[in-house]
């Protein structure tokens, strides 16, 4: 059980997302950096889909109302447990009354606080993620506020040891090392590379537009959030004006409204749309967008369907190996 002492406006409860209700108009929600959430749960030996707190705006401060193991993954935000510094991608044991403070991140955009057992909020339509438009799921269907008290799901007694974490805790290397994807840095700005599969209206863009699409560094504008990232760069010109009938879309779809400036739809995006689609950021790389900050740049790398599937398998393999390594560590500690 924890109490929120300080939070920005957009800290939310998220799991891996809500699938299976798209046909009711319900978007997926879920962690913007699904890899950071998955690793937090691996560190604690949780269910893979256990819910955690996504913290995009810092500082963030909580009090532990009971002793528990916890993990911090995602952005490195100079966290402290009382006065003890905590490295990023780390899990630790907290005693009752201790205070955890997350500071301003040195890099990346979102931190994830995972608790042993996972957060105990009701599953709604198969997920604990906060559905912002529908005001359901997560904690009371809304972002967290000061004085909120969140409980964790109790583990069956004897199933797992009280704490499988040594006094100083343990951690893993950031996934950027295990799953590297490099884009040439231009003008010293941080550039995130993501792989993209061409989508329905790809062929409707001029040759010049496609050249720009693959070669430009796309700046993430301040109008970017969990709903989508609005990008700024050269104008992408279509051969003709495209009017689409409303159809289903998924997180990662890159739409181009008439302004010619692309928008990447993300986890809180609506599940349907009508703007032309030039491409889709592949599922395996969406976590990289979740850690891209406003003002930074994005580059698109073209891949085939087969390469996109292989990238997803590589990510799943990476998580499986990490799970095995962490299990050994937890066994050694317990």
């Amino acid at each position, binding site marked *: 059980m924890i109490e929120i002492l300080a939070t920005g406006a957009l800290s939310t409860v998220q799991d891996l997302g809500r699938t299976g209700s798209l046909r*009711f108009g319900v978007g997926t929600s879920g962690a913007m950096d699904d890899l950071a959430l998955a690793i937090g749960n691996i560190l604690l030996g949780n269910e893979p889909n256990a819910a955690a707190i996504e913290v995009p705006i810092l500082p963030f401060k909580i009090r532990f109302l009971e002793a528990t193991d916890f993990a911090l993954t995602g952005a490195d935000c100079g966290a402290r447990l009382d006065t003890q510094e905590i490295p990023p991608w780390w899990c630790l044991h907290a005693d009752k009354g201790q205070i955890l403070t997350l500071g301003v991140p040195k890099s990346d955009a979102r931190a994830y606080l995972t608790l042993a057992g996972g957060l105990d909020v009701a599953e709604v*339509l198969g997920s604990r993620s906060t559905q912002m438009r529908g005001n359901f799921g997560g904690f009371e269907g809304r972002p967290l506020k000061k004085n909120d008290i969140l409980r964790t799901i109790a583990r069956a007694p004897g199933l797992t040891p009280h704490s499988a974490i040594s006094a100083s805790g343990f951690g893993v290397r950031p996934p950027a090392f295990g799953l590297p994807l490099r884009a040439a840095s231009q003008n010293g700005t941080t550039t995130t590379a993501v792989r993209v*599969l061409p989508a*329905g209206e790809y062929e409707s863009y001029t040759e010049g537009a496609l050249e720009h699409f693959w070669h430009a560094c796309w700046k993430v504008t301040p109008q970017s959030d969990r709903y989508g990232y609005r990008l700024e760069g050269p104008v992408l010109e279509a051969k003709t004006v495209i009017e689409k009938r*409303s*159809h*289903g*879309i998924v997180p990662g*779809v890159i739409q181009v409204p008439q302004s010619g400036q692309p928008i990447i739809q993300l986890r809180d995006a609506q599940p349907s749309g009508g703007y032309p689609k030039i491409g889709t950021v592949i599922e395996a790389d969406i976590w990289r967008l979740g850690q891209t900050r406003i003002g930074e740049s994005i580059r698109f790398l073209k891949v085939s369907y087969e390469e996109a599937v292989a990238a997803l398998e590589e990510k799943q393999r990476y998580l499986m190996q990490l799970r095995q390594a962490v299990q050994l560590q937890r066994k050694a500690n317990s």
Partner: protein
Amino acid sequence: MNISLLGTSAILFEAPGLMDIRHQRRIWSMARRFSSWPDVSEAVPGMTNLMLAFKQPPADIEGLICALREAWEQEAELEIAGRQIELPVTYGGDGGPHLVDVVAHTGLSIDEIVHLHAAPLYTVYALGSHPGYCYLGGMDPRIATPRRKVPVVRLPGGSVSIGGAQTGVSASAGPSGWSTIGHTEMIFFDSSKTQPASFSPGDMIRFRIDKVIK
């Protein structure tokens, strides 16, 4: 027809021809067929199109593309015996702030627009956009009004609006690029139910003129 990938998460089938009820019935039929297809987590109808969301990316994507193509050619129309629901609407006033814009665009009077909007029996083609929202087919093209250049940041739930050749009712408060002409009281979504949306594809909606505020 057009079949395209949405990354490794989904595939989109877009039917050729008109956006009409006969084509939409074939989409409903395809949705039923493909919802139990291997690797498909959900079949999501749109406006004469169908998205199949994946549990995991199918190894044989070409096989699925062929199956979609063949299914469209062979598919019979699925007649859904939907319910018929009447929604009382207050047109104009605070709940219909853009009725004047529809007047300006169409050159019709308020009364003409209201009567043309309330005349048809609309069919729910599909749900999308936000929880419980229905895409309706059957609006009179004479009151079609282009989407707004600048979307409205927050419209209340129950807003009856026109976007291009389509009309619909927002199920909860949120941003919209459509022109809002009226307001209705109706609960469209209850997340505690296994069938959370109040309407399903095939249901029919009639807007009853409750009041016209000029």
